[in-house]
């Protein structure tokens, strides 16, 4: 309706990338449109031309972040032929590369803002569909058991979120290894397959089936005394 402002030189993706940076640094509440504009090298009206609110900026910034994630993930997936390697790659990618602060911000906003809730739902559905597609491919190839692919995807997504909360709040360096192992083990158990979770047992682990016991010996406080006697 109104004439288009002369702001085409500042692209939407640049504003979104700037928004993601500022939101991660400061939190949505302390992020001002002016900060995003400054980071993107433009003016507040140019930001407001593309985005009506900060909530919209958050949701869109995550969508862009997510898009980049999927592009990278697809490139990575093509390196693998077998669905089970692809699934493992997807779980590793989600555990390692994600910016969980933005996700947690999204949950908090979703508690009170319906539009943010929808945006979160859209992002979550997409992730679940990607995982379910790989699971179906694996089932078709006879690599996975016949569990309900959508439910496995839902469980895996939920588990990874829960693990990410723990990893984000505790020591991230320690958290990621454990997070990966736990997610891979659950996928193995649900799909009756081998994804190599054992390789994440311990930095000193040998990846063999006995590594579960190896970590208990390396880290004695993890083991219950009876199990340790049995091993010795």
């Amino acid at each position, binding site marked *: 309706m109104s004439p288009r402002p002369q702001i085409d030189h500042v692209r939407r993706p640049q504003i979104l990338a700037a928004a993601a940076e500022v939101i991660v640094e400061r939190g949505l509440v302390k992020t001002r449109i002016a900060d995003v504009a400054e980071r993107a090298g433009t003016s507040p009206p140019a930001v407001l031309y593309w985005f009506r609110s900060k909530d919209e900026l958050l949701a869109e910034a995550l969508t862009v972040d997510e898009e980049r994630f999927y592009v990278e993930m697809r490139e990575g997936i093509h390196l693998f032929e077998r669905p089970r390697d692809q699934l493992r790659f997807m779980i590793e990618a989600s555990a390692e590369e994600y910016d969980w602060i933005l996700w947690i911000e999204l949950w908090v906003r979703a508690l009170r803002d319906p539009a943010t809730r929808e945006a979160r739902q859209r992002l979550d559905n997409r992730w679940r569909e990607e995982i379910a597609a790989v699971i179906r491919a694996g089932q078709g190839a006879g690599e996975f058991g016949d569990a309900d692919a959508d439910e496995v995807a839902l*469980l895996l*997504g939920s588990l990874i*979120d*829960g*693990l990410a909360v*723990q990893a*984000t709040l505790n020591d991230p360096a320690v958290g990621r290894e454990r997070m990966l192992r*736990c997610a891979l083990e659950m996928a193995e158990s649900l799909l009756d397959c081998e994804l190599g979770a054992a390789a994440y047992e311990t930095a000193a682990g040998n990846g063999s089936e006995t590594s579960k016991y190896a970590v208990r010996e390396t880290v004695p406080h993890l083991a219950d005394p009876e199990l340790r006697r049995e091993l010795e």
Partner: protein
Amino acid sequence: MEEASARRPEGPDARERILRAATELIASDGIDEVRIARVANRAGASTALVHHYFSTREELLAQALLQSFELAADERFGAGPAAAASATEGLAIAIEECLPTPGEGEREWVLWVELWLRAAREPELRPVAGRMYESYREWVGRVIRRGVESGEFRRVDPDEVADLAMALFDGLGVRSLIHDPAMDLESARRLAAERLGAELGVDPSALTA
């Protein structure tokens, strides 16, 4: 509210009232919207009195979150599962209590999610969150250890299964809390019971109340 105004503004319970008002406002409006003046108003106190007990807004919010979880811990991390007739029944109670039940459970869960965000963002709050998770982990671990020792559960590492259980409760619970159409409370309970049942060698139907 009438309770608050009937009391003297000062006295030993004033700090208590201020903290309770703060947790109520965090739950209803979100932590970022909480202002000292509104907390004071709700607690029937002056802003000066609030500042007397809490030097900064951040300190008030941290203490409110901390106390809210410590109060919950008295109930939640209390006798429920331990008093159950069996470890299996205890775990069923734990699953029920760790997911966002309507009312009080949801209110507590909102605070929980707010705590995640604050702790992720503000390193000085991380010890608070760390303590919460530690007592949570010990409590879940005890429930599982009991079943391992009694032979009701498979001989797993209780701490590892506690980590898995907590991650499931958090990941399933937050979806149920924000009304993911694929995850109502019943589905969250069923999925948690199925996974933990498989992990522990227990019939999942024995884990849903």
